[in-house]
């Protein structure tokens, strides 16, 4: 009996000694990079870890739904929660790749306002819950330009504003800007893009700029292009700029025709951690979490109740601030969700087209 007791005790001790790390619950949260993910980590991910003891692994990606599709279809889902651009969320939802989320179950605002009334209208969808209102803006290096650009047309004018340009390697936003630079009013952008002639027109404008463009994939890359002087002007995610300015970079935002959009949290289907993921989503989209994030990066919270909790100085820098919205274009997530596959194929092929005599051709 004594021997048996000893064995049990020894085994228990050994397991305790070795198994501490095994017992900790984990959650894989997929998001973006740079100052943006930092605002999420400090704003609500670390507090969530402290409150729940769950280890949150933050995985970086740069958009798209290919990886989600692959994981969900294979029933090998490693991504528990994903921060998606709204048009990607719509596409993934329509493909049945995401869990449906009951908005009624989301935490109400502190004053008791139900979440369904508290969120901005586009912030709630069948498979996602609004995170922030982000924005893509033109930003320029003040030390590389002799004069100050005043409109989006100046971005496309390399003779008046010499220097290379940075653009995201995706059609969204770029085609809209190309049309505006070509004289299309912002209200008619998607109406024009919806036609073959309009699409050709947008690509033709981009073709003229193409020899001067450096293409970036992540928000950090965009800032780096400006910091290193590789480009004099670049499309960037607006929230990344103040962080770079704080580091002493001579950057200035041109708010003209900013393209604003929603990001949403979504849960891939067939996950093993869905309950915990949903719990995290509720936490991340609470009034307080969204406000804490907006105090760390100037992106608009998708809940109305969060806004009063955002510092005055930060509010002026939000894409949704009145002064910044005068000529803004709302990225039409529904239009892109229907057209992205078709246009992205054309865009990728267009990217491969040389606009100069190639230095190296297949031999």
């Amino acid at each position, binding site marked *: 009996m*004594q021997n048996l007791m*000893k064995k049990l*005790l*020894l*085994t228990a*001790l*050994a*397991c*305790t*000694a*070795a*198994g*501490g*790390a*095994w017992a900790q619950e*984990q959650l*894989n949260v*997929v998001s973006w*990079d740079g100052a943006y*993910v930092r605002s999420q*980590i400090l704003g609500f*991910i*670390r507090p969530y*870890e402290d409150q729940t003891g769950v*280890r*949150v*692994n*933050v*995985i*970086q*990606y*740069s958009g798209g739904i290919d*990886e989600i599709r692959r994981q969900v279809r294979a029933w090998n889902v*490693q991504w528990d929660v994903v921060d998606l651009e709204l048009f990607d969320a719509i596409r993934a939802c329509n493909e049945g790749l995401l869990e449906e989320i009951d908005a009624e179950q989301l935490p109400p605002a502190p004053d008791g306002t139900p979440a369904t009334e508290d969120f901005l209208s586009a912030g709630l969808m069948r498979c996602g819950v609004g995170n922030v209102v982000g924005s893509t803006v033109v930003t320029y290096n003040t030390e590389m330009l002799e004069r100050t650009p005043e409109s989006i047309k100046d971005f496309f004018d*390399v003779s008046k504003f*010499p220097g*290379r340009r940075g653009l995201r390697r995706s059609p969204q936003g770029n085609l809209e800007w190309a049309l505006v630079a070509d004289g299309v009013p912002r209200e008619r952008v998607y109406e024009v893009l919806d036609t073959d002639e309009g699409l050709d027109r947008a690509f033709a404008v981009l*073709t003229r700029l193409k*020899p*001067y463009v450096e293409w970036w994939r992540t928000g950090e890359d965009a800032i780096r292009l400006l910091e290193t002087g*590789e480009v004099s002007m670049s499309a960037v995610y607006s929230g990344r700029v103040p962080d770079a300015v704080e580091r002493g970079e001579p950057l200035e935002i041109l708010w003209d025709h900013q393209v604003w959009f929603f990001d949403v949290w979504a849960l891939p289907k067939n996950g093993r951690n869905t309950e915990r993921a949903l719990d995290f989503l509720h936490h991340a989209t609470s009034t307080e979490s969204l406000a804490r994030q907006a105090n760390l990066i100037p992106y608009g919270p998708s809940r109305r109740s969060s806004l009063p909790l955002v510092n005055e100085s930060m509010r002026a820098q939000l894409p949704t601030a009145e002064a910044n919205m005068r000529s803004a274009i709302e990225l039409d997530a529904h239009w892109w969700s229907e057209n992205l596959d078709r246009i992205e194929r*054309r865009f990728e*092929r267009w990217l*491969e*087209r*040389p*606009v*100069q*005599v*190639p*230095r*190296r*051709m*297949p*031999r």
Partner: protein
Amino acid sequence: MKHNGNRVALALAALAVVPGLSAQEVAQSTELEQLRERVIELEAQTDDMLQAAVAGSERVADQAVAAHEPDVRIGGALRYNFIHRDFVNASESKYGESGFDVFRLNVDGEVDGIIISAEYRFYSYMHTLKHGWLGYEFEDGSLVQFGVNQVPFGLLPYAAHNAWFGVPYYLGFADDYDMGIKYQREDGPWSLHLAFYKNEELNDPGNLNRYSFDPAVVPDDDQYNEQVNQFNARVAYNFGRGSGCETELGGSAQVAQLYNSATDRSGDHWAAAAHVDTRCGRWSFQLQGLTYDYTPRNPEGVSEDTITLGAFAGAYAIDSQADVIVANVAYNFDSPWERIDQITCYNDYSHMTKSTEGALDSRINTTGCAIGSGAIFTYVDHIYANNMAYFGNGSLAGGGEDRWHSRLNVNIGFYW
């Protein structure tokens, strides 16, 4: 690891204070030892798991990106030729010929920080390694390549836009590959190449199954020269870099020994080139002047006026001293068709003036277009040559013929 060690110590200490454990029970040390090993094993497993996982929100991982990017890429091409030669009766009578050109396999990538790039080519009459080198990129972006790599001389990477190339290629001064080490770096608008080549790419001057032209040892030829211990330097300055209208000005130098295996003596060889390479908007202009000299130590009585070069399973003589000029122009059209990605049309001209008294000049002019559509890339070239190797009785040495010959060459390739 420190916390793991602590955990092991804690577990063992706990074992030591378990009530009832006494000296007599030391006999049970085997069991204890087994448990200790089990603890260590579990610790190791825990470590593995922690290594595999991302360590919490403090770190941002790029798992998805890393997981899907292969380190080494296998590629290749399969190409066919459609030809009409006005200097071949059968070609005239048959209204042209067609056939397999080349099948090539490429390996490009990086393994443990070492870059690899290799290309092997299969022709109907030979197969050979076109290039194969290992490289290392330093933190400052400079690169060293070791193995069979492209000789840095003159216009790079090619001294022509067309598929048939121009005179420099047939003299071994363009798209030439040798065995050696090359260092290349860029400092703003400056670029520098320094290289040393021990010998030609196969270390077998008698083997003509090669892609690029080098001095060769050929049966029934009395020269026995091979190019060894070659140094190359190339410096270039790029005006308007990144502006969409840039011009590279450059100079190249090449010196080498010319070892003669019949006399066991070494002659020498040098070459120099200056080039201008402009790409402005959709236009490209290339100019190059090059001069070279071979001073062989041939066996007694063997002329030193020519040097025998070999490649593509054949050999011919070239003048041992000559000057060459290259003038190329090209324009990249904006394709009006969605399925056509690239239309680049060009006219490439090159002209060789020989030093041998009375030797006829050699000239080649190619007008054509390169058309790209997805994985298919087609060259449509009309080659017009005077006194060129592979065209009638043309010769790059003395003699030959002062006649223009034409070759319509359509090269269709599928690249992956």
